[in-house]
Each structure stands twice: as structure tokens, then as C-alpha cells.
């Protein structure tokens, strides 16, 4: 459960400081600080609307924060102001790949085409090489024989595994998961979580937004609990999920563990 990389001296991969974001006069993120060590899994939890998705989107520049900074170790650093453009934020995207709640696969492309699109069109890798890699990644998640199917021919769980493979194929230094199992039928959740767990064990660095607290406890090195745009509590999963200090965390965890 705890990885070697969880030690304090693990290299920092990503440091986000003072992320602030408003939509109109609605302040969605107040001042978010996050730090992720190489190989670490950070689970972001919190009530719906607390700003988890917005944090993820700020980390890859999909959303432009009004203030704050995102810095990758040996990589790009972007200091955001209200004048930062999409183009300036784009450098962050070469570092991370995102897995969406509703997959967002490309419906007009086959599974294989979905996976190689980024490597071939963006990273300009050789097509044959990209295909070989895509095939082995698909085989890993048990979807080798689906390579020529279209997304609509797959179940939700299969689509999400393709979504994960599409992200992996880019060889990012950071994986961002936004509630990857929230849209799935309950019996399909396990297949996807198993893949994420394997990736965590392999040493991928990831930020995972999830409501699956048991899973978060299993894979995460650190839990960050957010509410109303601020980090309320953070720490080791055993502490935050078992013996939370903050009252809001206590209520949230209690509600998720005892839904009735």
C-alpha cells in the first residue's frame, strides 16, 4: 500500500501553489496548494461542487486559473495571471494526460485509432511503433481483440479502459483521473479500478478524483479533502479516512461510508 516513493525525500514531480479560480463572481478555488512526489498517488476527495474537477483542469491548463503557479520538476512552470492565454498554458499538457468521467473517446475512430492519435499526430512518433505499443497496452487491459471496434460498440467499462490506454500511450509524467468510475454500472467498476491499481503499483504518478473511499485508501499515498474551494484536510489515508481531524471531513467521510 505505501510505496517506496512515499518517503519524504521522494523527488517532487509537481508543485501547485496558490491556485485561485473564479467563474464570474463565484470563487470556485480559493488558494489551493498541492505537491506530488514522483510515483505518488494523490487522491482528491470532497463533496460535489467543491472544486475537484477544476483543480485537475488547472493542473493541465484546460482551465486557466486567475492566479497561482503550476511547476513541474525539470519541466515547464506556468505562473498564472488573468492575462495568461490558453496557448501559454498549453506547455503543461505535454506533462500530463487526463482520464475523463465520461471517457470522451473519439467516436469516429476505432479503439486503436483513438490510442495512436496523440502519439502519431502530436508526438510525431512512427506509426508502426505507436501501433505496436498501443496493441500491447490494449492487451494489458484485456482489450486486444477490440482494437478495430468503434467506441459505441464497447461497454462503459471497456470504454474507460480505452480512455486509460489513450492516456498511457502519451507516456505522460502525470496521470489525471476525474472520477473515472462514476459513470459506470456498478459491476463494471472493478475492472477499471483494477487497472488503476496496477498503474499505481507500477509507479505511475497520479492525481485521482474519486468517491470510492475504500479504493482511495488502498492506492493513495496522500488524501486531500476539499470543500468549497479550499483544502480542508490532507494527510495519510489512514488518518484522513479513519480518524479525520476536521469536522467537515468527518461528516463527509461518515456520509459516504453510511449512505442511509
Amino acid at each position, binding site marked *: 500500500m505505501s510505496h517506496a516513493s512515499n518517503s519524504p525525500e521522494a523527488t517532487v514531480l509537481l508543485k501547485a501553489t496558490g491556485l485561485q479560480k473564479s467563474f464570474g463572481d463565484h470563487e470556485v478555488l480559493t488558494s489551493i496548494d498541492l505537491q506530488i512526489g514522483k510515483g505518488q498517488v494523490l487522491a482528491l476527495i470532497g463533496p460535489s461542487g467543491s472544486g475537484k474537477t477544476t483543480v485537475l483542469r488547472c493542473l*493541465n491548463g*484546460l482551465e486557466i486559473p486567475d492566479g497561482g503557479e503550476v511547476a513541474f520538476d525539470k519541466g515547464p512552470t506556468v505562473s498564472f495571471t488573468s492575462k495568461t492565454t*490558453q496557448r501559454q498554458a*498549453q506547455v503543461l*499538457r*505535454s506533462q*500530463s*494526460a*487526463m482520464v*475523463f468521467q*465520461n471517457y*470522451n*473517446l*473519439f*467516436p*469516429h*475512430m476505432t479503439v486503436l485509432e483513438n490510442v495512436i*492519435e*496523440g502519439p502519431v*499526430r*502530436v*508526438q510525431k512518433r512512427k506509426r508502426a511503433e505507436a501501433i505496436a505499443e498501443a496493441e500491447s497496452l490494449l492487451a494489458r487491459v484485456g482489450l486486444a481483440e477490440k482494437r478495430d471496434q*468503434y*467506441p*459505441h460498440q464497447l461497454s462503459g467499462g471497456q470504454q474507460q479502459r480505452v480512455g486509460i490506454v*489513450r492516456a498511457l500511450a*502519451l507516456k505522460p509524467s502525470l496521470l489525471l483521473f476525474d472520477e473515472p468510475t462514476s459513470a459506470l454500472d456498478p459491476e463494471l467498476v472493478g475492472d477499471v479500478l483494477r487497472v488503476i491499481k496496477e498503474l499505481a503499483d507500477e509507479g505511475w504518478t497520479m492525481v485521482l478524483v474519486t468517491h470510492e473511499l475504500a479504493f482511495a485508501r488502498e492506492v493513495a499515498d496522500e488524501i486531500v479533502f476539499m470543500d468549497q474551494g479550499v483544502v480542508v484536510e490532507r494527510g495519510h489515508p489512514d488518518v484522513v479516512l479513519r480518524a479525520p481531524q476536521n469536522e467537515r471531513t468527518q461528516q463527509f467521510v461518515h456520509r459516504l461510508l453510511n449512505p442511509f
Partner: protein
Amino acid sequence: MTVDWNLFLDSLWPITQGALKGTIPLSLISFVIGLAIALLMALMRLSGNAVISFIARAYISAIRGTPLLVQLFVIFYGLPSIGVTLNPWPSAVIAFSLNVGGYAAEVIRAAILSVPKGQWEAGYTIGMSRTLTLRRLILPQAARVAVPPLSNTFISLVKDTSLASVVLVTEAFRKAQEIAAFSQEFMLIYIEAALIYWVICLVLSMGQTRLERRFDRYVAR
């Protein structure tokens, strides 16, 4: 009234020739150029820049708010008075292209907007630029939505090219007019011309169906 079948058969080839040398190439060329204009106008309308968006909006409004025949006359009979004299063919191509550009722009804009926002974001997160996302992800998906309305635009265009007869382009309808004037068999010849337009449009409808089926490969039914 007796039908002069000999005249009918004798005029079949000349009118068809008018279609092959006039109607069909005029339609095809104008449609292709018109689509390019339409795509440009659609993207301009969608751009965040208020001035650019306004220009596109004004263009679309002007094209849709004025009769095609008047547009044709402005270009062929109007432009020479300010020193720009164009031959019948180029005049017709310009008028029809601009016209298609105005109508198809709204179709393409709507089709682009029908693609879920998540597709743009998925493109961005795999590192694509806006342009690459548009070209590889958004337009191919928008195309599926746009095929039926654009087919309508194309079919309308084929019929509208008969207006080119008034600016002296030799196409199917002008041929028919000549034969009718000569033979005085107006009913027969104009019905014959109508039938030829109908056949062309039937073929186009079949093409539309095939195209739609191809695009349906990737959507759940």
C-alpha cells in the same frame, strides 16, 4: 394534344449536354468553393473576436436576405458599370459560390456546435492545438451532422443554376429555352428539362444516402 416524341428524343441530348457542360460543373465548382467560404465564415462567427464575428454575421445576413437572382445581376450586369467586367461563367461561379457560402455557413456552424465540448477537451489533453483538434476531431464529427442539410443546399444549388441562363451561361435550362423558342413546343420541352433536373437530383439523393450510411458506422443506432 399529341406528344411529338421525335422532338422529345431529338432534344434530349442537347439539353443533357447543357447539363453535362453547364449545370453539373457549375454546381460542383460553386459548391466546393462555397463550402470553403462557408467553413471560413462559420469559424469567423465562432471566433471570440467581436469584429471578425460581426463581419461573418453581416455577410451571412446579406446573402440570405437578398434574392439570388439579384446577386447574379449585381455581379454580371452591375460590376461592369464600376469597371469590372466578367464573363458569364466566372460571374455565375462567383455568385453561386458566395450564395452557398452564406447558407452553408450556418449549417456548418451548427454542426460544429453540435460536437460535445468534451471532444475539444480530449483533443487538448492529448496535446493537440486548436487547429489540429478542429481538423482531426471536430470537423469529421460535424460532417456527419452536416451531410443532410448540406445535401439540401447542394440540391437547391443544382436547380438554382438554371438562373445562370439569364446571364448567358449555356446550361440545361438555356438549351431548353433555345429549343422551345425554335420549335414552339413549350410544354414538352420545359417538362423535359424538368425531368432532367429531377434525374440529377435523384442521383444526388442516392449519393446522400450512401454518404449518411458511411458516417453511421460509428454511431450507435
